[in-house]
């Protein structure tokens, strides 16, 4: 199923759009450090589900959109997302059979990698940051993975049912 080329693409684009909306939505200042990386989570799921269809390029382009939307260096999120998405693409066969808690842990590691790359680029570009402030979104992201995965499973079933 995963290797089907004729996948309906628009539901996934729609999910990514919603993720982008959620990541630029204004939040109270206290909740801001705990905003999950919606775009990264969405990309991980669809890379595992359809690695031939939604892969590197999708991640890279989403990253560019994020860069402009959040006013970061053009290419910063693009780089972090492309590196991060490499692993689910490379190991999707192994990751797919993981039980859900194990997958959550993997997602947490991926998010940590993603945030670390962002942190690293910020440091190189001279934007003062504190590493501790990057943990909030990693933790909320990992906690959010199981419900998000169930939701995306539902979306995917709809996609295959209508096809």
């Amino acid at each position, binding site marked *: 199923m995963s290797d089907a080329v004729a996948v309906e693409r628009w539901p996934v684009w729609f999910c990514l759009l919603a993720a982008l909306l959620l990541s630029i939505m204004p939040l109270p200042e206290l909740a801001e450090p705990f905003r999950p990386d919606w775009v990264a989570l969405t990309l991980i799921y669809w890379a595992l589900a359809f690695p031939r269809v939604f892969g590197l390029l999708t991640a890279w382009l989403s990253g560019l959109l994020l860069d402009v939307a*959040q006013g970061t260096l053009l*290419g910063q999120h693009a780089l972090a997302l492309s590196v991060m998405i490499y692993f689910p693409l*490379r190991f999707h066969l192994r990751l797919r059979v993981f039980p859900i808690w194990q997958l959550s842990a993997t997602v947490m590691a991926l998010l940590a990698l993603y945030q670390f790359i962002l942190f690293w680029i910020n440091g190189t570009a001279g934007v003062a940051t504190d590493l501790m402030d990057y943990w909030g979104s990693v933790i909320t992201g990992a906690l959010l993975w199981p419900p998000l995965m169930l939701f995306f499973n539902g979306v995917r079933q709809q996609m295959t049912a209508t096809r």
Partner: protein
Amino acid sequence: MRSLGARTLALVLLSVIAMVVDHRENHLDAVRRAIATAIYPLQVIVALPAEAFGWARESGISRSDLQRENNRLKAERLAIRAKLQQMAALESENARLRLMLQTTTRVGDRVRVAEIMAVDANPYRHDIVIDKGRRHGAYEGQAIIDATGVVGQIMHVGPFSSEAMLISDPDHALPVEVNRNGLRTIAVGTGEYDRLDLPFLPNNADIRPGDLLVTSGLGGAFPAGYPVGEVGEVTPNPAESFATIRARPATALNQVREVLLIWPGEPEPQADGSDDDSAAAADPASEAATGAETADE
């Protein structure tokens, strides 16, 4: 997927090149502007709930509340008008005195209200997105204030929206002077909304808690004379050459919803003022450029 690694590497390289170019110069502004236009609808959608909430609250206000507010505003308007009368007299006096001193005249700047559409998600970058862009005459480096003081300046201009850096951003430095005695220094952002640092003043500088800091107009980006903040604690460091001085921004930077864009030196259409003040009066270049206009004041 034999070329997955190679393709990742290619995209990484592309990103690095993009970042280096974006960081060093502004060649990618066209790309950024194109993407900004594409995601503008998203930003509008995201701002909708807050706007709807504001609208609902406004239309839900009771009649007596409205009347009370109306009365308060009328009283306030009266007080402000009274002040304004004095202001007109003071302004002409100021113009006369400055003419005698052979310097440029300061007049009201043209302003325009803009609304904040989004704030940056990153806690270490104090950026905001406002709903005025090139279409409305905004330009890069333009100063942004609100009713109480300086807010920040525009970094990137899109067609319909712009991205601005707050004065509390750790990357932001603002030329200021102490209103009491004209002592000039730089106010640097700290990454905290309610704190600015004045790192370049010697231990014996004449500065006290409670002093008002205003923009000095040096550096050219900000017009002179707008309030920036109030000096908080002043701690001399006998072991080092500079004192530790903190200031509190005049504006509640994390609570602003509406801001004003300033066009320095462009008077309001109905005002009768004449010319420039964006650069400091002491700057000979700007004086030469505007001297012709001031001479016939």
